[in-house]
C-alpha cells in the first residue's frame, strides 16, 4: 500500500493536505490582507483568471501588482483588445511607465477596407479573436513582456493550456478578464472572482494551484481610492435617469 502511495506521489498525482507549497513565485498584490490569504500575493508568472463585471475596480486591484511586475524586470506590459480606450492619466498616475506599454487592438484593417457584407463581418470578428490569442502567445513566449492583460470574449481549455505553456516559457504572467457567468475551469495558476462592494471589492478565490482555496475576503480601498468608495451609510440614488 505504501509503495503504491509513494509511486503516486512521485508522479505528482497525489497531494498532501498539510503541505501547502505554492506552485508559483508570488508577487505582493499591494493589499496586505489579500497577500496573507494568497500566501504571498499574485503569481509572478502563468495565467491569472479574473471573473468580474466591468468597472467595479478590477484594474485598480491589479495596479500595484502591475507596477511591480513592470519595474522588477524592466519588461513590457501588454494590453490586448481592451474594451475601450485606455486612459493615460490613470495609468501614469498609478506609477506605470507608459513607454514600456503596448496596446494591441486586433481586427484593424490592414489594406483599405472593402465594402463588407454580413458574412465577412462575422469572419472578421472571428479573425480578430484569433489574432488576439496569437498576439498574446507571441508576447508571452518572447520573454520581453512582464504581464499581458487580455479581454477575451471566450477561451477554450486547449487555448488556455497553450497560453499557460507560453507564459511559463517566457516567465510572464497573463491576466484574463472574463465575465462571471463563464464557469469553465481553466488550467490557471490562480482564479478569482470579484463582486462589487461599497468599500472596495469582495474577492473569492476559486482556484489556487497547489493550495486550498481561501475564504472570501473584503478588500477595503477606502484609503487608496476614497472617491471611489461609498460612505458608510449607503445612500439612495440621488437622481433617476429621465
Amino acid at each position, binding site marked *: 500500500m505504501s509503495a503504491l502511495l509513494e509511486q503516486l506521489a512521485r508522479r505528482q498525482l497525489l497531494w498532501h493536505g498539510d503541505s501547502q507549497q505554492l506552485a508559483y513565485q508570488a508577487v505582493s498584490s499591494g493589499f496586505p490582507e489579500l497577500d496573507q490569504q494568497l500566501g504571498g500575493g499574485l503569481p509572478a508568472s502563468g495565467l491569472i483568471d479574473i471573473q468580474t463585471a466591468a468597472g467595479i475596480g478590477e484594474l485598480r486591484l491589479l495596479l500595484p501588482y502591475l507596477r511591480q511586475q513592470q519595474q522588477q524586470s524592466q519588461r513590457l506590459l501588454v494590453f490586448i483588445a481592451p474594451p475601450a480606450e485606455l486612459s493615460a492619466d490613470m495609468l501614469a498616475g498609478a506609477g506605470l511607465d507608459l513607454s514600456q506599454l503596448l496596446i494591441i487592438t486586433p481586427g484593424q484593417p490592414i489594406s483599405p477596407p472593402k465594402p463588407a457584407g454580413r458574412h465577412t463581418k462575422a469572419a472578421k470578428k472571428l479573425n480578430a479573436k484569433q489574432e488576439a490569442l496569437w498576439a498574446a502567445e507571441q508576447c508571452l513566449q518572447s520573454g520581453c513582456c512582464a504581464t499581458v492583460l487580455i479581454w477575451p470574449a471566450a477561451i477554450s481549455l486547449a487555448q488556455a493550456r497553450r497560453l499557460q505553456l507560453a507564459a511559463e516559457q517566457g*516567465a510572464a504572467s497573463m491576466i484574463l478578464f472574463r465575465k462571471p457567468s463563464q464557469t469553465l475551469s481553466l488550467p490557471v495558476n490562480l482564479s478569482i472572482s470579484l463582486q462589487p462592494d461599497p468599500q472596495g471589492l469582495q474577492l473569492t478565490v476559486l482556484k489556487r494551484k497547489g493550495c486550498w482555496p481561501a475564504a472570501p475576503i473584503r478588500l477595503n480601498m477606502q484609503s487608496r481610492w476614497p472617491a471611489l468608495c461609498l460612505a458608510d451609510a449607503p445612500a439612495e440614488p440621488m437622481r433617476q435617469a429621465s
Partner: protein
Amino acid sequence: MALFLYLHFPSLQLDNLQLSAENSQNLAIAVVDQQHQLLQLNQSAINAGLKLQMGLASAAALCPDLQLLPYQSEQQLKVLNSAAQQLYQLSGDIALDPPAGLILRLDGMLQLYSGLAPYWQALSAKLHELAYRYQYSCGATPYAAKCLAYQQAALITNDAKRLSAALHASPLTATELTAPLQQQMARLGIHTLGQLLALPPAELARRFDSQLLSYLGRLRGDYYHALEYVQPESGFSRYLELLYDISDSAVLARPLVKLLQQLEQQLSRASCQCHQLLLTLFFRDNPKLQLCIGSAQGEYKAAAWLQLCQLQLQNLTLPEPVYGLQLDVNRFAGQQRPTEGLFAQQQASMSALQLLSLLQARLGRAAVSGLTLQNQHLPEQASQRSLPLVKGYVVKGQAGLAALALRPAFLLPKPQPLTEAVTISQGPERLCPDGWQLGAQRDYYIGRNRQGQWLWLFRTASQQWFVHGWFS
C-alpha cells in the same frame, strides 16, 4: 608580369533561372536570340543533342518538348554583376566583360593568398557555390586570358612559356576578330594566332585596318588595356524570375528564401543589418505590388526575415499569379548587439523591438500602438495612441507631466447617453474645450450604478447626461 584570369559563363541567364526551380532539371530549356538561334542550353537540352547556334527548326525536330526563353541582355548583365559582387570578397580587381565574362587581375591577389594554387582553390569553391557553368583560363593580358578561356584551356599557371605556347596554338575562331576578317585570314593560310603574331606589325598595318592592330597590341600587352573594376555596392537589389507562375502567396516563401539567403550573405560579409525590405511582386496584367517589410530591431538572418515576410504574405491575396520577385534593400546599417545582464535569470528569446516587428507584420501597423500622456485637460486629448516603445519627450529641468489621478481607466470613444439610475459620489469638475466655449462645457461627476460599477458621467450645458468612461 601581370597575370589575368578570365571567367566565361556560357549560359548565365539559364543557369540563374534553374537555381530558383529545383525540379526543372528534367526539362529541356534553351535561350534563343532575335535571330532564332540557340544561345544557351541546359544539361537536358545538351543530352537531347542540341547544339549552340542551331536554328529553331532543327532544335524542335531533335527535341519536340523544348522550352524556349528569349535572351534578355539586361537580365544577363544583372546576373553577371551579382556574380562579380559575390566574387569580390575573394578577389579585389574584377572587371565586367559583358555579356558573359569576368576579368580578374591576379598579380595583387597572389601576394595575399601566397600563391596561385591557394587562390584558385578559394575561388573555385566560391564558383562552385554560385552553381553557374563556367570556363576559365589564365593569361598574361585580358585578351590572352579570354582567348584561352573560350577554348576551355583551363590553364591555372604562372608559367609565361606555357601560356604563350597555348596562345600561339589557338585558332582564330577563339579570338575577338570579326567573321569576315577571320575568313580573310583563312584565305591567306593563317589559321592560328601564332601565325598571325609572327607577322611584322608594319606589314599588317599596310594590309588591314587599325582594329586588328589594336587587338593584337592588347593581346601581346604592347598597348594599355583599360579595365573598369567593380566597386562593392551599398544596397541590395536582386530580381528572380520564376519558372512557374505562383498563385498561392504561401508558396512564394520558397523562392523568396533564395533571395533572402543571398541578402544574408551580403549583409554578414559587410557585418551589416537592415531595417527594411522592399519586396516587389510582378504580375502579367496587374500593376506590380510592392510590400514593405520592416524590422524595428534590424536583422540580417534570412530565417528572421523569412518569418516576417511570411506573416505579411499570409494576409495577402494575390490578384493573379506572380511571375517575378524583386528584393531591394536601400540602406544597410551597422550590426548592433543588445547588451544583456550577465546575471539575468531569464534570457529573453527576442527583444522588445523584435516582438514589435513580429506583431506589426501579422496584425498591421495600426493594430499595435503605445500610449502617451499629453499636456491637455480634455480627457479625450490627454491620452493619445502613439508609436509603440517611444519614450515620451521630457523637457530638461522639468519633471514629466503630472497625471491627473482621478480619471477612469477606460474612456468610451464616443460618450453614451446615461440610461440608468446612479448615485453621484463626487463632482462636479467643470471642463471646457479650448477657447472657453461655454456652450460646450461639461460638468463631470463620478457615479455608481446599481450593479456597483463606477461610471464617469458628465452633464452638458443643456442638462443632458452622458457616460464617458468607467473606473475599472
